[in-house]
């Protein structure tokens, strides 16, 4: 345990205290107590900046399950530090915002902050774990806390729907990812990411490599809402807005990005990695932005926008993988993509966080987030409007905001793929810049919709629940801080270059950054009249045109049939699996014991018959057999006849008498085989049971054999013959394979001398195996108690003490 571990666990410890604050100090909003923690943690993590600046690392470890190679190694490098700062920094702002957003009178704050703290700790754990198993543990914990937060208002159907959807999809990915981790651990014999990276060459040639990669990417893509798994994110917007800002845009959904970045050093050399990460990323960018335009809910727009932006970062990480195929660092232009990914990650957290908070304010002050009911709010909430402008313009990629810078770098990264001459990029590479550009046009459009449909246009007071006014100052602090960062990073990007971006990018590609050196990171606004600039100008021009003519072409969206969507697939899939399972189960579980026994016996015949045949196990040996006498033949004939009579009997009484005949005949066999005590026992049991059966069955209704059809009877006959045949074959074979002298010789030798008894059977029962007899007696006692209870106690009649 170290201070670093304590930092990771501190949110959980704090979570335990939250209910106390909530109950004990009702007057003060619980959020104020919670707020202290992320601030302290943020400051704590800041002190690692000097360590990672030179690509250094800081590591502390403690053993959890060392026997299985599972330790909790906390590891700080550029990449994890960047995430840790985002988690705690944005976390502090979100908590501050939530204090004003959630009423301390009406809301269950203790739940809210417990979940939020759980998430914060889990997320810190994800990005600071070196051990894959601890990483997985925290990963699932983020899914769980997200589930709880989405369903925070658990009496709403939509909240529960969204919570379940997000959980099913992300836990599915998590399990696949676990599978991938296990494969990695089989290949590399360790759960440590560090040690796996060290043997990346070996892993790359392992036959399980691709299998592991696909499983792990499933985890990353589901968590980071990539196509086609993104469908949970829009529904996750049912969570309170501070949660959406925090989990579903700034941090949790970036866990997938983190995972891809972290494991790039293992997988990125592979062509499949490039195509999967880059290809799915760029398509998600396009698809998300395209769908964002048609949304009418402000949070819906932001959700699809987040999907799209995550795709952007993902595609950059894919493109950055190309860099590994080129040796020299100095002129390795492909590292630019990775640097852009890191930079955009930061920028996205700032502008998207502020936009979510803006939307939260609008929702809070007007009671709606529907852009068809909003409009003209600029004069009521000027500060919010200003923040919205900054955030949206940054998102659209306009100067001088930070989004412009990273968007330009994104274009650079995509354009560079055209010059790469591997992986068939000559043919297919063009898709990347084209999709990037088209996606950016749509991004521009929805950014404009977000701001202008809300704050300009016609004010429609009749559609609003309450009269809008500016938010309280406290609620504005957090978005103002974020908007200020958008501007600050836009104007002075190099504040970040070597403090955060370079260390993170170097941590993603350790193999091409030699020890002691750093990547060249320089961000600037002006690169001359480059292709990127013209692309941006194109985006703006076309974007403005399309925004202005929005009403004319928005109908194009309705061309797509509403039913053929991934959401419908999820909904019907879930419904069908429940319904289908019900029908399937109902079909074979019909409640009839006869049917069940037929299943069981058919399996019995089939599998034992197959084994007998397959193993050629049937043997008959006629050695050591006594001659068969007339008595035996007669008795056997009686037994067979008796059995047949049971089957043919029309009344129960006849059946029982036939059954008794069979039993008595068996005891006659014992007589012939010179086992008088067994014969006596059998006789007593037969007599008693026949008498009891006669007594009981007298009260039962008549048999209705006529209702049983011929097929039913024939089926039963086949099953019965089958079971009989199989048992006979096995018995003959077992009898013919006596390979050892039986232990009974010992009993014969010792019954008199050692156990001092003259009847061997008796001695076996009461001495050699007296333990068996003791418990057989117990069985009788239990049966007696049971029958007594069954006869005397009828709860259904009295209705007393029933427990159903």
């Amino acid at each position, binding site marked *: 345990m170290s201070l670093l571990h304590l930092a990771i666990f501190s949110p959980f410890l704090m979570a335990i205290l939250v209910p106390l604050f909530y109950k004990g100090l009702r007057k003060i909003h619980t959020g104020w107590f919670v707020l202290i923690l992320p601030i302290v943690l943020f400051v704590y993590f800041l002190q690692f900046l000097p360590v990672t600046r030179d690509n250094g690392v800081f590591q502390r470890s403690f053993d959890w399950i060392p*026997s299985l190679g599972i330790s909790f190694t906390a590891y700080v490098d550029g990449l994890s530090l960047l995430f840790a700062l985002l988690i705690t920094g944005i976390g502090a702002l979100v908590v501050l915002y939530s204090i004003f957003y959630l009423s301390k009178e009406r809301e269950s704050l203790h739940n809210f902050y417990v979940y939020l703290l759980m998430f914060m700790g889990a997320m810190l754990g994800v990005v600071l774990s070196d051990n894959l198993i601890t990483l997985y*543990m925290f990963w699932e914990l983020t899914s769980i806390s997200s589930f709880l937060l989405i369903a925070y208002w658990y009496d709403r159907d939509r909240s529960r729907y969204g919570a379940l959807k997000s959980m099913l999809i992300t*836990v599915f990915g998590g399990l696949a990812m676990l599978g991938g981790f296990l494969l990695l651990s089989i290949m590399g014999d360790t759960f440590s990411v560090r040690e796996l990276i060290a043997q990346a060459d070996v892993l790359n040639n392992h036959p399980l490599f691709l299998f592991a990669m696909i499983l792990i990417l499933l985890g990353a893509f589901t968590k980071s809402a990539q196509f086609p798994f993104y469908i949970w994110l829009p529904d996750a917007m049912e969570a309170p807005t501070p949660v959406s800002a925090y989990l579903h845009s700034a941090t949790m959904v970036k866990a997938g990005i983190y995972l891809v970045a972290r494991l790039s050093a293992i997988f990125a050399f592979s062509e499949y990695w490039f195509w999967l990460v880059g290809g799915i990323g760029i398509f998600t960018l396009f698809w998300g932005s395209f769908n964002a335009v048609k949304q009418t809910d402000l949070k819906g727009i932001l959700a699809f926008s987040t999907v799209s932006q995550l795709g952007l970062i993902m595609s950059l990480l894919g493109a950055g993988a190309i860099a590994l195929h080129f040796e020299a660092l100095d002129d390795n232009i492909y590292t630019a993509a990775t640097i852009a990914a890191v930079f955009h990650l930061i920028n996205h957290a700032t502008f998207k966080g502020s936009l979510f908070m803006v939307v939260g304010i609008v929702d809070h002050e007007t009671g709606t987030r529907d852009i068809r009911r909003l409009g003209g709010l600029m004069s009521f909430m000027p500060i919010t409007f200003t923040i919205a402008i900054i955030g949206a313009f940054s998102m659209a990629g306009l100067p001088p905001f930070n989004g412009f810078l990273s968007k330009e770098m994104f274009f650079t990264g995509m354009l560079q793929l055209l010059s790469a001459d591997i992986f068939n990029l000559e043919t297919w590479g063009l898709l990347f810049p084209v999709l990037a550009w088209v996606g950016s046009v749509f991004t521009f459009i929805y950014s404009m919709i977000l701001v202008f449909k809300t704050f300009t246009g016609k004010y429609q007071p009749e559609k609003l629940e309450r009269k809008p006014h500016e938010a309280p100052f406290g609620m504005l602090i957090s978005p103002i801080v974020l908007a200020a960062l958008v501007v600050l990073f836009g104007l002075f990007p190099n504040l970040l270059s070597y403090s955060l971006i370079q260390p993170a990018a170097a941590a993603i590609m350790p193999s091409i950054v030699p020890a002691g050196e750093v990547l060249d990171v320089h961000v600037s606004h002006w690169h001359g009249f480059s292709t990127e600039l013209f692309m941006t100008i194109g985006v703006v021009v076309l974007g403005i045109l399309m925004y202005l003519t929005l009403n004319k072409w928005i109908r194009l969206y309705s061309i797509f049939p509403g039913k053929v969507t991934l959401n419908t697939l999820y909904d019907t899939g879930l419904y069908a699996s429940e319904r289908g399972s019900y029908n399937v189960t109902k079909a074979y579980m019909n409640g009839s014991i006869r049917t069940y*026994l037929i*299943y069981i016996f058919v399996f019995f015949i089939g599998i034992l018959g197959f084994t007998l045949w397959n193993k050629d196990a049937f043997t008959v040996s006629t050695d050591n057999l006594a001659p068969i006498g007339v008595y035996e033949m007669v008795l056997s004939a009686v037994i067979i006849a008796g059995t047949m009579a049971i089957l043919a009997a029309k009344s129960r009484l006849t059946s029982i008498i036939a059954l008794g005949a069979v039993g008595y005949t068996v005891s006659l066999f014992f007589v012939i085989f010179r086992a008088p005590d067994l014969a006596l026992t059998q006789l007593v049991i037969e007599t008693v049971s026949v008498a009891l059966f006669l007594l009981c069955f007298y009260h039962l209704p008549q048999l209705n054999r006529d209702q049983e059809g011929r097929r039913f009877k024939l089926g039963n006959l086949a099953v019965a013959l089958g079971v009989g045949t199989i048992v006979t074959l096995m018995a003959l074979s077992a009898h013919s394979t006596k*390979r050892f002298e039986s232990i009974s010789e010992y009993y014969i030798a010792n019954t008199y001398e050692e156990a001092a008894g003259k009847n061997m059977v008796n001695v076996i029962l009461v001495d050699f195996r007296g*333990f068996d007899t003791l418990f057989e007696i117990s069985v009788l006692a239990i049966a007696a108690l049971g029958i*007594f209870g069954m006869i005397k106690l009828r709860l259904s009649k009295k209705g007393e*003490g029933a427990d159903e």
Partner: protein
Amino acid sequence: MINLLILPILIPLVTATLLIIFSKSIAVQRVISLISTIGTFAASIVLILTVKNEGIQTVNLGSWQAPFGITLVSDMLSAVLVATSSLIVLCITLYSFRSIGTARERFYYYPIVQFLLVGVNGAFTTGDIFNLFVFFEVMLMSSYVLIVIGGTKIQLRESVKYILVNIISSALFVIAVGMLYSVVGSLNMAHISQRISEIGQLPILTVLAVLFLIVFGLKGAIFPLYFWLPGSYYAPPVPVLALFGSLLTKVGIYSIMRSYSLFFYGDQAFTHELLSILAIITVIVGCIGAIAYWDVKKIIIYNIIVAVGVLLFGFSVATEESYTGTIFYIIHDMIIKAALFLLIGIMIKITATSDLRQMGGLIKKYPLVGWTFLVACFALAGIPPLSGFVGKLLIVRSGFAEGQYIGSIIVLLSSLVVLFSVIKIFMNGFWRAPKDYPGEEKQPVQFLWVPAAILVLASVLYGTGAEVMYPIISQASDALVNPTIYIDAVLKE
């Protein structure tokens, strides 16, 4: 103490006998049950420590030297299973005080529960294949009584089916033991193992392996022998259901593990392949059943079948890692299944229905029950650091390592289905708008919560403290990997 290992059988046996005498006084019955079950549990813990320090413990009953008398054998596998069973019976006994109802208490409920524990602990401990049959009978007879006691219509109807299936399986058990005796001429399990190792796995032994699989599979509810289970388990009241769900199927699984590791390990290409296929189908049909229903009891009952499949799959992989994983998982599953049944029992008490669609909003008034249930859900699904994780991790990893990709992936994804099935209970039972249920104030929710919470806590500690458990579980898998350890301990002279 030499005869330590007999205590977990003897204490409940003596207790059961005593309790029959005191059947009129419920208070006395409760006190004696509780104290003696604590005693059984304590004895089993001492047993674990003894086995840990001194190796496998054996007793030749009546001092008839093995293999001629009956030998009890406690290796680590049986010791941990005995301890787990005793803990579960302890918690369920406590839960029954306020749940089973005085009528059943007066009609020998507590002695029968003790008899059930005799049967279960005996089956785990015996080293004699016929004696195993006897303990099966003790266990089954107790379960017949538990399923029928109370005499409600559904109980009577389902107990007929239950008894019928189990009598058939008992008959097959005797046939199987007889045939095995014919071939190897012994009943002592270590002795049988030794003799089989001398002659190799003859074809008839492979056939007998399959026959034993059917016998134990009927108890363990593997595919396609589980059909009787959902209906029968549904009938009795919740504490009985919890006993059955957590203990009985595991005795079947244990017997498969024991017999397949001691006797039938010579033709794994055939037998273990068969196990593996049946295991995977069991997981799938269990999953299908688990998501099919909106009845809380049914949902958890089908989850029993999923777990049986997972355990059988883990065992069928047959490496040291997979055995360790299987044992980790079997203990986890016993604890968490009992906990889940007890928790849904509380839900049923409050709402007076087991239909999920008629429940809702319980978290408002019963937050402790709700959160305990949620933790149990995640433990069941194997979310780390809770108890299901380590077992599943080892099972899946060993499956991958042995090239069983499809089976491993199915086991992995079954976690998702399992999670979905129980989260459905949480979301619809505890969430949604709160409702009022007639008579809910009278229900002893706080009291019933305690034993359930003890079990969930045990599960959490078992998961997070996996390092403490690891040497014990690892030792438990030793005898599975290497039967000579078991043989030498029994036939040491």
